[in-house]
């Protein structure tokens, strides 16, 4: 078996974790609804009445899912995600998180246009293996198109950073 084909977790483990998360979520919904009052008040149902039962349904359904996960049999041993697959997913997810962080943050928000250009460039360079001859025109083209579309044509302002400020857009 190749390195990339090794399973990170089994399908059963993933099912159990997911059902468990749902169970906790349902319990939290029930608990908070109980706090608000999930009974019949003097003037009708209280604020927590409807959500309380929603939470209860989540708990019941995820309990059943949990049981089913334990009774999956052989199929439960299948891979939920293989190492190579997870590596690809993280190779996309991690830069995307950095990208969103770069758009706006209290320290050095770049604005959505500059951040997008950097993000597309990084993606093309690392995952596509392109050189600057292709990267630069694609990035500039996409970002300038979006700038025209949102800021000029549709007048929907997006987050901007120091570069746009230097160019006179705020």
């Amino acid at each position: 078996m190749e390195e990339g084909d090794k399973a990170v977790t089994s399908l059963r483990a993933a099912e159990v974790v997911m059902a468990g998360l749902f169970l906790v979520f349902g319990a939290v919904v029930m608990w908070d609804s109980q706090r608000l009052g999930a009974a019949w008040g003097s003037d009708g149902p209280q604020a927590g009445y409807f959500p309380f039962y929603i939470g209860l349904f989540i708990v019941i359904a995820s309990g059943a899912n949990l049981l089913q996960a334990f009774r999956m049999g052989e199929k439960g041993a299948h891979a939920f995600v293989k190492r190579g697959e997870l590596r690809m997913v993280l190779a996309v997810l991690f830069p995307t998180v950095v990208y969103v962080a770069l758009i706006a943050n209290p320290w050095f928000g770049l604005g959505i246009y500059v951040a997008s250009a950097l993000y597309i460039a990084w993606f093309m360079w690392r995952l596509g293996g392109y050189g600057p001859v292709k990267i630069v025109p694609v990035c500039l083209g996409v970002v300038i198109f979006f700038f025209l579309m949102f800021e000029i044509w549709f007048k929907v302002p997006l987050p901007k950073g120091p570069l746009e400020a230097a160019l006179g857009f705020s």
Partner: protein
Amino acid sequence: MQEIQSLIGGFAIAMSWFNLALMFAGVTLGVLIGVLPGLGGANGVAILLPLTFTMAQQPGGATSAIILLSCIYWGALFGGAITSILFNIPGEPWSVATTFDGYPLSQQGRAGAALTAAFTSSFIGALVAVLLITFISPIIARFALKFGPPEFFAVYLLTFCAFVGMAKGAAFKTIAAMMAGFALAAVGIDTVTGQLRLTFGFMELLKGFDFLIAVIGLFGIGEILLTIEEGLEFRGAKARLNMKVVLETWKELPRYWRTSVRSSAVGCLMGIVPGGATPASFMAYGLAKRVSKDGEQFGNGKVEGVVAPETAAHAAGTSALLPMLTLGVPGSPTAAVLLGGLLIWGLQPGPLLFTEQKDFVWGLIASMYLGNIVGLIVVLTCVPLFASILRVPFSIIAPVILVICAIGAYTVHSSMFDVWLMLVFGVLGYVFKKLNYPMAPLVLALVLGDRAEDSFRQSVLGSQGDLLVFFSNPLVGTITGAALLLLFWPLLSGGWSALRKRAAT
């Protein structure tokens, strides 16, 4: 024949140059969205919805806005077939059945015939569904005017029970996902008592979860993550579509009129029930395979095997708008997003729409006829263009789509918190897809949660907390009964076949 008159009025509205231009733009964008991985009808419309905010404020603007968005939907329905046939990648879940015969056809070098058959039958399916909407929806709307809160809650119940009963996968996963949607819809300020629910002191949660963010994350980011898992390669057949092939295929198509009629009927019926398009396409394919005289040839590239699922899927996708317009209950995630659009533009979906917003409703219905004609023209003429877009490497397309998703999420409320939320929903969507949790019920519950809760509260307020109010008269009793029947349908049909088996032995 009041409908015909109203429809002519609708055509007068939809035929303006501005609206016709919007139709072309919408359909082209829609096909593009349907062709690109990670963008589909639901999140494509969700991303573009904020762009219509200013448009909808002008007089008659809401009609133009819905024409634009619904045409994106038609385009996406058409576009799903292109990737299925040329690349064996279903762009939308309801195009899966199209790959069975469409891809073999294109491997045999008959891609043109498969595409023509797919587009033409999509058009026919849609046309049947629009005719249905034209003549049935005013009747349903008139009927629904009598509905009070208990009836509306019963209809919502029916919608959600149908999801559980008709679901292919695990019923409890459907329930869990759906209820999670309701719980997320409850987050924020309770409209009746003004209390804060499930916010746990976070200011960002005050306004609750917007379903548009959930749609963009679940369907967009989740889809991209899932696609990328299998690597960055795309391989597909060349597409050439000239008039000769189109005409030859059109000559062949009338032979399958029985399949078309059957598939349209299946599609229309299933489309009114939520989540119908995908099962409808499979059902129509299965039916055609069983009934057709060379049924065993299905799967090796039969044009009839493309006609059946495409007609049904398009009929279902179109008729999903019928309950959305008449009852305010969307039949598909994309219809749910369109419903969300109506709410944002300040229109109240439901039976009153037909009396109070005549121009809007009939403008939309007329635009469905025109939009599908425009769609057919656009896809037949521009297939090579759309196919060439698919040959742009994924490592360029993917980041651009992710940027579009981020911009789309931001523009909903001009809030960075929403962009982060979109990422969370994206990871959730990826895990949901891998574990077979359905996403459509979650989205529908998120859209309808507040309305369902309001109608529930008003109903039980009227009855002083007696839940029997949902059986208090024949009308509401029938709807509630049908809902419960659908909910327990898998159990009932399972029990029935077990009984029959026992009787047989």
